[in-house]
């Protein structure tokens, strides 16, 4: 699992191998997080990156967009951002004598919603609805979003000043939530020496043809899940529901999210079947933002998740 030179199973190279390598050239010292982000996109889910400013959240989103050849848009969320600033507006066109729709940034394949918790809940929910439905309704008319459609949202931790924390129901819309954290010593040194990473990511070119991503997503969805593995996922979900430290357990939707994320992780490992290792690898990112401590409103901690994984026997 973590560092296996000769994998016992899998290890087959796949279309994402060069993409991950290239991304790791830009985002230094964060291979696991890069891989989780890739898994999230492959599973067709949206990604929430949460960390302090300046740790490379935006760079990660930008890098993935470049490498995957996705049409990219970026919205900086602020307290005065309106829903229409995201979805688009209809304006009166004098020449044609009618209203013309100007699509907002949401009509792109990869939308980077920077610092989503700085916007008001009204604006947040406009985006989240678009994420869920794959379409937006503007002035009574439904407009379909492009496909594929990913949202990578970043947010500062909620204890920063001037933020509107996302409510639980909206957190659930994100397949994964990851934290980047500080780079380790070597990576930081390399980063300091090489200068800004944003420029490096601007120079990347696409490694994937536009029609390839949906095919790969279909491959990921076909990764085999055996009954024994479903038993394990069930055992994990039940453990969160019976856990005294959590206010609520995981929902069935969370269970499905866990499986599809595990499939993507297995595929990225070069396997055509899901192992408990894959479930464990994605369990934290998938489950943590869906679990809340019993006392306060804080999300489940990394240590609690690790203890849970260690305590649930693999059937």
């Amino acid at each position, binding site marked *: 699992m973590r560092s*296996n030179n000769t994998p*016992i*199973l899998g290890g087959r190279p796949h279309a994402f191998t060069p993409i991950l390598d290239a991304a790791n050239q830009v985002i230094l010292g964060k291979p696991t997080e890069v891989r989780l982000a890739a898994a999230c996109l492959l599973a067709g889910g949206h990604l929430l990156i949460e960390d302090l400013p300046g740790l490379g959240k935006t760079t990660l989103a930008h890098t993935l967009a470049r490498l995957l050849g996705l049409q990219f848009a970026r919205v900086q969320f602020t307290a005065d951002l309106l829903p229409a600033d995201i979805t688009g507006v209809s304006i009166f066109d004098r020449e044609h004598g009618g209203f013309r729709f100007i699509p907002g940034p949401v009509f792109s394949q990869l939308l980077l919603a920077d610092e989503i918790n700085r916007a008001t809940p009204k604006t947040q929910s406009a985006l989240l609805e678009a994420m869920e439905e794959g379409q937006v309704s503007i002035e009574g008319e439904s407009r379909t979003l492009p496909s594929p459609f990913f949202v990578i949202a970043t947010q500062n931790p909620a204890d920063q000043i001037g933020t509107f924390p996302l409510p639980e129901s909206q957190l659930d819309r994100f397949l994964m939530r990851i934290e980047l954290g500080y780079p380790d010593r070597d990576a930081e040194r390399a980063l300091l020496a090489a200068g800004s990473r944003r420029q490096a990511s601007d120079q990347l070119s696409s490694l994937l043809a536009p029609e390839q991503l949906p095919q790969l997503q279909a491959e990921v969805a076909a990764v085999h899940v055996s009954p024994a593995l479903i038993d394990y996922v069930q055992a994990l979900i039940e453990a969160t529901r019976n856990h005294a430290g959590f206010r609520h357990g995981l929902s069935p939707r969370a269970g499905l999210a866990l499986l599809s994320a595990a499939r993507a992780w297995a595929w990225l490992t070069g396997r055509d*079947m899901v*192992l408990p*290792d894959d479930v*464990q690898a994605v369990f934290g990112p998938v489950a943590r933002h869906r679990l809340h401590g019993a006392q306060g409103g804080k999300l489940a901690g990394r240590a609690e998740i690790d203890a849970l994984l260690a*305590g649930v026997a*693999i059937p």
Partner: protein
Amino acid sequence: MKSSQPDPLSREQTPWLFAAAVVTTLPHTLQQPWWLSAFGALLFAWAFLLWREDRRLPGRWILLALVVAGVAAILADFRTLFGREAGVATLVLFMAMKLLELRSRRDATVIVMLGYFLLLTHYFHSQDIPTGLWLLFALWVVTAALVRLQAATMPPRENLVQAGSLLAQALPFMLVLYLLFPRINGPLWGLPADAFTGQTGLSDSMAPGNIANLVRSGEIAFRVRFDEVPPARQQLYWRGPVLENFDGRIWRQATRPASPERIEELGPRIAYEMTLEAHGQRWLLALDAPVALPADAKLDGRLAALAPRPVDKRQRLRLSSSPAYRLNTAESPLSLSDNLRLPANGNPQTRELARNWQAQANGPAEVIARALRHFREESFHYTLQPPLLGRDGIDDFLFRTRRGFCEHYAAAFVVLMRNAGIPARVVTGYQGGEMNPRDGYLVVRQSEAHAWAEVWLEKRGWVRVDPTAAVAPERIERGIVDALPAGEPLPAFLMRHGDWLRDLRHRWEALNNAWNQHILGYDTQRQRDLLSRLGFEVDWRQLIIALGLACAIVLALVTAWSLRQRIRPAPEIRLWHRAQRRIGIHCAPGETPLAFAARLRAADPALAARFDPVVRHFLLARYAPDNPTSLAALAAAVNRLPRRRIA
């Protein structure tokens, strides 16, 4: 020929039904007429071809014609459709024909049910071990066919395994029923009148050649286990019917009403247990002279023990005999005159010879000695293939052919004695037996059939005289193989075999005997003995209650076991645990196999290198799409692991 069948049979199910039909009918080919076997094989081949070519089954009129022809043939051969032979033949015929009518599940069910019934009919012919094994196998195949009807696409192996598992679950019930079901003396239902034909044994009359024919049979007549030391071979005269009436050729039992014997015992009794094979007659073949009989048996007035009804199935008897005895020193005049009577005409030379001896001799004892000396000193031969005798058979034998088997000598001797005025009669039975060193049972076969003579002397009563002993003393001392001259064509089973072959035969017969004694011979008495040894004294009413209780307990146990099976870990998990036990290092509850492998690699790279294949095959078996070979590969990898090191 309905156009649409309600519940059609799939192509994959038919071969199983063919197999069920074949295994249930095949042993009957040994018993039934050849034409029926040929007809059945033809029908089967036809049905098989139609199945292979995926062609239409024959129409109703063809089937009807076949039924009429088959039934007519059975009627022509057996003159009936019922009874043992004809009934079984009819069922076999219908089984073969049903294969041509396999359209719906209903037809298939008929095959399976008929198959189960046909299994039972094999016990008419034989209840020995090979039959039992074959029927067990056939039961398995028929049950597999039944399973097949429910699951047409199951892999054949799993099909057989499931049928086996069904039967295995029935096994405890079988044992309980076998041990506790009240045993009834006599059959549960009436068997057809011809159910017991074909049994060999002594008959109630004797003509020259009868016994010689019987001797050719290697069948076992009875087995005996002596309570103490077995008597000497020369004393082993097993007494059957006593023949007193002679018409010049055939000896028959007297019709005169019997008066009870008066036996004086002159020595200690010998107690023994006899397991008598069915022979269709009433006599019990007790050792001369029987003095204690089973409660319902009696003596026939001539010292032959009789059962109350013909011995139609194997019986176990407790008997005691007194080899030294004196019988009827005061015999009724009627009996004595009967035993002096001869046909008015015929055998003149014999009459003259006997009268000469009588005139010369001083009393009966001397006449007897003279006669025996005659047999011994003149050139008489003991043979299984005596020449044919003419109208005056005794004359022919004594003066012309001089070659004969025991019945010739016994008959000639008795005729000589009667001519010399000494009451005499023929006794038939068995002489000798073979001790099986494997189980200590004395085995007496039809080949030990024998005839000897008895004469009545003043003060001494009936005295046994065996003229065969004068001609061929080896017959009495060592057995028939030694007595027959070299070059005599012997039946194969009597041939002298190498020691290992003899030992093999002894083992096989001991096994058969154990089967007879303990499995087939488990009767009311044994059942009661067994239960009382366990501390229960029960009558049949309590037995039924016990049976119900035992069945309930077994049902509970079987259910518990199968529930446990359901929650029992899958085979790959059991192998995975075994692998961990074997290396003595265990995977933590939340530790994935790959994490475990990594931990192992850090701790002991050499062991990890051998453990990695186990991890790989375990993961494949458990998490990969179904692959029938992965379990075997996992088992092989686990077996290659080194044994646990003592840390």
